[in-house]
């Protein structure tokens, strides 16, 4: 989103004509990702020193599995932001899709229908949003703000705030294990790696950076910008659908609400992970790492006995600190 005229997306520094060393290249390409990773490692060591139960298998499972859906949704969000757009309706969408999924499961449809039909619905809804953004040229923040109202209002008026219970056990895939690892963890890693490779090496993936980084240049090189934006929103809907599967199947009930400010958490994960809000740069590895960092912070605060009421303030402060550090780092490199 072009918020102002002067803040150009950061340019990777080219210090010399020689091929730079491996480490320097890694720092230049994945600087923010490495910072987030370092923060996770430091946090793990520090909290474990205070309370060794922090790295118990139980807690690790709850950190990774309970929040994997945020990381998966952040993959799609990262792609949307890389093209210079944004989606503030994602939280409401996940709530709607979860309700559809649960309703289908309880109504006796085959389990795979209950899992994957919502994915199609997510792709359709976001495809529509993409069309409004790309062809009707309404800014994505306006469209998704409207979509947020429509989805949230629709969800509450349809469900009336009731919870869906009596879900069939086979439906609850997020509670199951695959090769000894929780399914959400496996899904998060596989999806992140596939999306990261696709974004870095496929022509389509590269074109998304061009659309966000320099639309005029993208047009000049023959990239159909409108179609790319619709496609990226459909993809975002796809990841939102997959995130919904992980979210809806983790408990015995599906509530008609999602965690408050879920959309902000997902956007923050993408941005803290290094995606420039102005478009054109960032990776999905960063967004997944940032989602893990948030989950780790939340869990760590409980383990070092911070009052639950101060939780959000501390998380907010840490987010702000990361944003400021990121801006200072960028200013130095540019």
């Amino acid at each position: 989103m072009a918020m102002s005229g002067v803040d150009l997306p950061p340019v990777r520094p080219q210090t010399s004509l020689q091929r730079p060393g491996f480490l320097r290249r890694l720092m230049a390409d994945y600087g923010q990702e490495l910072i987030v990773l370092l923060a996770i490692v430091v946090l793990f060591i520090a909290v474990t020193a205070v309370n060794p139960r922090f790295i118990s298998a139980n807690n690790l499972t709850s950190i990774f599995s309970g929040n994997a859906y945020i990381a998966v949704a952040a993959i799609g969000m990262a792609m949307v932001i890389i093209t210079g757009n944004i989606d503030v309706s994602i939280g409401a969408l996940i709530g709607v899709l979860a309700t559809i999924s649960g309703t289908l499961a309880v109504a006796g449809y085959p389990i795979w229908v209950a899992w994957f039909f919502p994915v199609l619905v997510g792709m359709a809804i976001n495809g529509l949003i993409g069309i409004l953004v790309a062809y009707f040229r309404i800014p994505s923040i306006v469209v998704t703000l409207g979509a947020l109202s429509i989805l949230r209002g629709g969800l509450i008026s349809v469900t009336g705030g009731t919870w869906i219970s009596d879900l069939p056990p086979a439906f609850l895939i997020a509670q199951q294990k695959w090769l000894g690892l929780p399914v959400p963890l496996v899904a998060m890693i596989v999806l992140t790696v596939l999306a990261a490779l696709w974004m870095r090496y496929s022509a389509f993936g590269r074109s998304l950076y061009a659309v966000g980084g320099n639309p005029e240049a993208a047009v000049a090189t023959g990239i159909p910008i409108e179609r790319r934006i619709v496609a990226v929103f459909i993809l975002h809907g796809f990841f939102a659908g997959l995130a919904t599967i992980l979210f809806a199947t983790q408990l015995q009930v599906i509530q008609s609400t999602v965690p408050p400010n879920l959309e902000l958490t997902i956007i923050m994960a993408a941005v803290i992970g290094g995606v420039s809000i102005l478009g054109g740069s960032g990776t999905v590895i960063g967004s997944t790492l940032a989602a893990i960092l948030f989950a780790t912070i939340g869990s760590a605060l409980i383990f070092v006995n911070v009052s639950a009421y101060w939780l959000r303030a501390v998380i907010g402060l840490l987010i702000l600190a990361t944003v400021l550090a990121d801006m200072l780092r960028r200013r130095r490199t540019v």
Partner: protein
Amino acid sequence: MTLRSLIRHETFLAILLVLALVVLSWQSDRFFTVANLLNQGRLMTETGLIAIAMTFVIATGGIDLSVGSILGLTAILTGVFWKNLGVPLPAAAVAAIAVGTFAGYVNGLIITRFRVPALIATLATLALYRGLAEGISQARSVRGYPDWFYVLGQGEVLGVPTQLWILLIAAVVAAVILAYTRWGRTTYAIGSNEVAARFSGLSVEGTKLALYTMSGFAAAVAAVIFVSRVSTTRSDMGSGIELDAITAVVLGGTSIFGGRGTVLGTVLGLCLIQALKNGLSLAGVKGDGTIMLIGIVLILAVLASAIFERSGTR
């Protein structure tokens, strides 16, 4: 006055508002009464004050998502200063408003000094300020304010709700500032082309800092009115109000990219939303159905004005 200048977003919006009023008063005979309309004015004041300040912020091409959290923080502090610290209530309210204004100033500092995009900066402070409100309140609410305090949120002056006067004055002052003063023109200039504004010698940073501070101040004043209206303080007050305010501003024709927008448009957008909310609930539509409709109206209004504008430039 040519025909083209009449086909403005505000005209379109005013027609829509009149249409909505006609249809809604035909639906329910309890809608178009003086008592009901004044009461609706009471209900839209908090969002209105925030939306008026937001008009300036969005006209510079920025955004302020933290206003709901500033409202919550200010509300909590009003209660805490008064009840727990024993400060007299007027002083407590003023001190809380000062903190809320400072919160807006901090937003401005982060945005202008560190060059963090407004969306991200205020997203982060949204979490921070709400977190502070929760931490300070420890989920306790403060009640039992003295009677005179309720005049602000529940009383009347000359037959009109007290806070509606405040909204009216704020709207007129803001409209004059945005349309006719140097400060207002600078706001548009920043939104149209920030680099050009800087090269023209305009104080870009100073203006932005002042606008985000003003946004914080508006949210803080709204908080005190809110507390007076509902007779209690809770840490979750005002959550989601940023979206209501932004919807009113964008519906009112302010470009989300900056450079364009009027206070009149925002006020019309605000009235349209409130009329729809109230009229539909009187017609038997549940509150959640209304939220849906507002989303649809927002998208359609922007779509229509985008189409009008395109046909106008060709």
